[in-house]
């Protein structure tokens, strides 16, 4: 296990090299980041944001066009994949079809040569341990390809777990082909294994639920750039960018264009109290409020809205409403009545003000007024 350091890493694909120098030709823009030893990280972003490129740079499947990669204090930038001692689970299960489950797990150990070579007894012990860890003891002697998708993914993971000295386990959207209720099982199993053995884990996904539930720290990426890193709670409470606000949460944050007037924001002619005074700001000013922090109140109170749809998703309802010309999502808990012709009230402490998509920090706002 190791601490992984990215030192000004960037990557451009060969085909886009013609536009050399142009910042937008980067698949991954210059980036420095430290993955602490034993951390559970998620790399979250839409497809094409560079998250898989970053993952493959760490595992060595891609050589970055610039920058340095350290595992603890060793520079591994130019080491081939097999010498980096990394495990990786791919989107679709990768198995050696002709082998049994146990042989699949033993495979990375049997490939060792020289001083690292293990005896058969050692290999068997580690394979047995991994089988227990994954709850696959009963399948040990089955041919791998006769298994279900979720068991196959467990085996892909197991090939990393048998190597007790693995530096990090990387996941590239590993739950894509798994049914919803099995996703829960696999995810909690993963989390338990992380708790118990403390591997450094990096998990790439476009699914915010997976990212938030898996990781201690989530790295949100957009267009080859990291736009925010934080705990699930930080990303939920204080998105630094409107993209993070919208991308995280289901439904995502409401982003409303507004005007500022001291400690109030004016949206569609309605005034909403702000947690602090803001100076006059130029550019595109928006107000961000999560659907969870909007309350529906009786007619005549709050800002009037027109309800266009109500989606009941089981444990809560999502009310879609129009505030002037702008759409609002509002989460209403089970058992709470939805008034006819309601008004809305925003929870003051949960409002964020964004200037050109970036959060204007409250402390900055206070200082300048």
């Amino acid at each position, binding site marked *: 296990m190791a601490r992984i350091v990215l030192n000004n890493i960037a990557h451009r694909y060969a085909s886009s090299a013609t536009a050399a120098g142009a910042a937008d030709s980067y698949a991954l823009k210059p980036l420095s980041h430290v993955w602490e030893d034993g951390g559970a990280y998620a790399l979250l972003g839409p497809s094409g944001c560079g998250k898989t490129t970053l993952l*493959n740079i760490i*595992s*060595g*499947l891609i050589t970055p066009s610039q920058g340095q990669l350290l595992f603890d204090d060793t520079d591994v930038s130019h080491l*081939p*994949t*097999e010498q980096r001692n*990394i*495990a*990786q689970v*791919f*989107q*679709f299960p*990768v198995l*050696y*079809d*002709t*082998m049994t489950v146990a042989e699949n797990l033993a*495979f*990375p150990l049997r*490939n*060792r040569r020289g001083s690292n070579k293990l005896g058969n007894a050692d290999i068997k012990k580690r394979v047995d341990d991994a089988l227990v860890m994954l709850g696959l003891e009963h399948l040990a002697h*089955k*041919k791998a*390809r*006769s*298994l279900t998708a979720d068991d196959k993914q467990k085996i*892909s993971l197991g*090939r990393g777990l048998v190597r007790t000295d693995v530096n990090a386990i990387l996941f590239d959207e590993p739950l894509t082909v798994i049914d919803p209720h099995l996703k829960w099982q696999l995810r909690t199993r993963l989390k338990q294994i992380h708790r118990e053995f403390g591997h450094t884990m990096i998990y790439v996904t476009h699914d915010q639920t997976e990212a938030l539930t898996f990781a201690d720290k989530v790295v949100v990426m957009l267009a080859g750039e990291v736009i925010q890193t934080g705990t699930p709670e930080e990303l939920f409470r204080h998105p630094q960018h409107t993209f993070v606000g919208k991308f995280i949460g289901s439904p995502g944050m409401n982003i409303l264009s507004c005007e500022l007037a001291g400690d109030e924001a004016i949206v569609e002619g309605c005034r909403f109290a702000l947690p602090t005074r803001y100076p006059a700001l130029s550019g595109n000013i928006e107000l961000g409020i999560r659907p969870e922090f909007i309350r529906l109140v009786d007619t005549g109170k709050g800002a009037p809205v027109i309800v266009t749809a109500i989606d009941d998703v089981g444990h809560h309802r999502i009310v879609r409403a129009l505030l002037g010309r702008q759409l609002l999502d509002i989460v209403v808990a089970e058992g709470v009545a939805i008034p006819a012709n309601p008004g809305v009230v925003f929870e003051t402490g949960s409002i964020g003000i964004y200037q050109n998509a970036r959060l204007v920090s409250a402390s900055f706002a206070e200082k300048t007024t």
Partner: protein
Amino acid sequence: MKSWNNKAWFLVLPVLLLVAFSAIIPLMTVVNYSVQDSFGSNEFYWVGLEWFQEVLSSERFHNALMRNLLFSAIILLIEIPLGIAVALAMPRRGWGVSVCLVLMALPLLIPWNVVGTIWQVFARVDIGLLGYSLTQLGFDYNYTQDTLDAWITLIVMDVWHWTSLVVLLSYSGLVSIPPAYYQAARIDGASRWAVFRYIQLPKMRRVLVIAVLLRFMDSFMIYTEPFVVTGGGPGNATTFLSIDLVQMAIGQFDLGPAAAMSLIYFLIILLVSWVFYTVMTQQDADAESGRGHS
């Protein structure tokens, strides 16, 4: 399961008629000949399985059969590994792919008798580039007189002609392997051999079944090339079943034994192909029976 559609029958009818005229009716004629003897042109009488007994116990048949089996075995042992090796060495992307594919397809486009003629001339010791060069280099090479030379010439010719079929089939199997498999293997520290043994070979198995079947059947039925190049000689050294059969039927006009022999020939090919197919697809069936419908 397909739904039965009446119109579909009209569409397959021409093919059925064609098969009936081209295969079933001639085959029945052969069966008919094989159990009768003929005097002159149109007098036949029933002899039962006599011709079959005669053919099966004749040394001439045994020798030809052995030559066929040996030839097919050598062809498979050379062409399959060589084909896989060439396929592995071919580029997977870039302009090299189309160049290689065209080069590989070239020999397959040449008609059999032309291939025979090319090699017949190419290997001649007096005017052929190959034969003449070998002789000049001090090799005692002459495929018209030496049995071994004749065999080597035929084998080299067949390898030159048909290995590219195996290459193309193997290549199609190789390119269908998702890149994640290679990446996983690198992460697992697999050696080049392990990648071949546990990823490439299993993923190529289905196409290799086809390659082995095709190459076995073709090589076992080989006729045109040895007929053109060696004419079955020197002596009977390259007289394969097919050549023997033609000699018997057309040269000597022994229709009865020839018919019996061609049926036996046909059954051998069917049997061996079936054995190959069953053995090579057995593993598939084992694995599939363990899982539900998918």
